[in-house]
């Protein structure tokens, strides 16, 4: 009988769920926004429906992401660092360095055969994260999902010198008022984010192949700017938002099978599908 393992990744702006058997049988990306964060159970429910499974059919569930401790129906919590490494390695096994650009933080992870060897995180400053791009997109009136595309038509990226998001927003408004083109401003903003991320990730002994995950990976302008900094093409997984949840499912699978191999059985938490705690 095939066993199924689920991973649920509660990020700062997205909730993702993946179920794996021999392959990925379901993946769901939940809605954004603070009011939805506690609805991890709904995202999980959608994933179960997609796979045609019942909650009881899942052998083991691992939660990850910043909200991992708040998922009552998870059997184990594992950090997003470990899960990104595991998930990405399963998709792109040649990758040795991962850049993850999420809504509220960015990370660099060095891996060797799926095992984390070192990592760095920017968790104190919005510059270098998706939040920076969100703020600027709003200021310029460009839809977030179009931001990357707009940057590609820039003639000459504008220099954005402020690393603080609030002051960078002010700087963008000033430049806009002096007649700078939106395309150049958007490209300049991508360059500023890429510069911050590059400085962060370079603290690791970066080795190719390099992959990018998280919401930042969906922004073609940011990917291009980062490729310019790193001097090589970045690999982008087919769905860069789910690597953490996929990794969580795979960690669960590995743990369960390892326990079986040692003559033990990991038991489920016994909790049914419930809302995530402490978000309201």
């Amino acid at each position, binding site marked *: 009988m095939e066993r199924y393992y689920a991973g649920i990744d509660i990020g700062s702006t997205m909730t993702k769920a993946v179920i794996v058997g021999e392959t990925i049988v379901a993946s769901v990306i939940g809605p954004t926004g603070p009011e939805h964060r506690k609805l991890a159970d709904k995202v999980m429910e959608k994933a179960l429906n997609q796979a045609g499974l019942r909650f009881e059919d899942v052998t083991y569930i691992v939660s990850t992401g*910043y909200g991992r401790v708040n998922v009552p129906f998870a059997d184990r919590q*594992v*950090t*997003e*660092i*470990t899960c990104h490494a595991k998930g990405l390695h399963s998709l792109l096994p040649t990758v040795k360095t991962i850049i993850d650009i999420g809504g509220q*933080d960015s990370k660099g992870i060095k891996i*060797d055969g799926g*095992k*984390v*060897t*070192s*990592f*760095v*995180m920017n*968790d*104190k400053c919005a510059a270098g994260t998706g939040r920076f791009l969100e703020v600027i997109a709003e200021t310029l009136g460009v839809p977030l999902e179009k931001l990357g595309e707009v940057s590609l038509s820039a003639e000459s990226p504008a220099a954005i010198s402020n690393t603080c998001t609030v002051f960078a927003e002010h700087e963008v408004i000033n430049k806009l008022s002096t007649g700078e083109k939106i395309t150049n401003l958007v490209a300049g903003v991508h360059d500023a984010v890429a510069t911050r991320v590059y400085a962060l990730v370079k*603290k690791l*002994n970066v080795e190719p192949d390099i992959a990018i995950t998280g919401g930042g990976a969906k922004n073609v302008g940011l990917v291009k700017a980062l490729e310019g900094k790193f001097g090589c093409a970045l690999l982008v997984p087919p769905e860069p938002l789910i690597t953490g949840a996929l990794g969580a499912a795979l960690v669960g699978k590995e743990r369960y099978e390892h326990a079986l191999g040692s003559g033990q059985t990991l038991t489920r938490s016994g909790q049914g599908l419930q809302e995530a705690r402490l978000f309201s």
Partner: protein
Amino acid sequence: MAEGKKPRSLATQAAAKIAKFVRGNMSATLKAKEEGKKVAYAYINDGQDEIMRAMDIVPAWGESFAGVCAAKRDAEKYLQKAEADNFSRSLCTYATCTIGFDMWREELGGQTPPDAPWGGMARPDMIIGSAQQLCDPRFKWPQATQHYLQDVPVFVGNMYYPPWDPNRNHHEQEAIYVKYAKAELLELVRFCEKHTGKKMDWDRLAGLVDLTEKTWNLFIDTYELRKAIPTPMDTGDAMNTMVPITFNLATQDAYDYYKDLNDELILKNEKKQGVIENEKYRLLWGAGLPSWFALGDFQYFNDKGAVFPAEVTYRNAEKIERLDLPATNDPLERIAWRWVRFWTHWYDKARKRPGSSPKVERIIEYIEDYKCDGVVFHSAFSCRSWHAGIIHQAEILRKVYGDIPILIMEGDIVDISSYNEVDTHNRIDAFIETVDAYKRKGN
């Protein structure tokens, strides 16, 4: 108003006594003023302890005061004071915290600012600075302080040691550095004599040098008891038990303290009583001063099954026989040799491992001696002396020693605005998972 903080539980009774020790040092400066004794602003690990003690000068330690302010989460008012006078937020926050305190006291006509943690420090009669032994901000810190305490005389001595060069035999240069250091120490003696009106008692000084050497030996013997598995004391405690060796060197109190700690650790080892019940991971605190406002993070490591049986930070002593000091009866020369050799005695070992450096060699020695599974560095942004080299050390360590899990934490010694508890704990979680994965795969 001070923010709330989690209490840290300590593994040893000796560590629990340290608050009284620190408080005693601070109140001693206030009492000294009442008794007409001279008080000097002093700076740690500068080779000047025995001279001050021999001249009955009471040291007021800015680094200790700033640490107390940070631990009580009550430093911001002093940092802001200094910042308002254009001191950059990225300068050493030990310095800016105490300068802010000094500024405020001068504004109050010499009265201690209200609600100063543990009563604050006394206004000094002199400032005895030293640079280069430990960190470069201490060149300018005493001078910047004098900007506000203009009637207070300043002495800044320099205790250099040969720089690391893998292609050069530093032993050929050591005597020159010792000669220079001795001359600086003699200058300090003259400075102290001038400002205390007393003559140096050279026999007393020699006796205090003997006491310091005895204390160094006992300190290392005591800390080596932590090699036991499970370890009876970890870095969370050592950030307390470092006080006597750091701030009370050349006093009987310091020696007696380590005698008590030694007895306690022997007893704990006999009972196999570790810091935690189930010691799963042994880590080395590889470099960096801690965030004094977040010492509870050591508890967080402990809760994950991790202990720190050793640390580089504040292990500022060595077995005297290991330093192989030349014989001399001159107490100043003995101090100079001891400190120069303290910094250079890893050079020979580092030279034997191509690509290594003395700092990395020291880390490797502790990893092996204390059977550590990973290394944690703390990059305190305002402590340039540690902060700047940490990534380089981590890279060299991996290159010359091999693949070992390394965590670089980020924060500051005093400035709490640099710290985010949730994210720090997230990093620790990820690191522990990494160490666990290494151990499971037998790396």
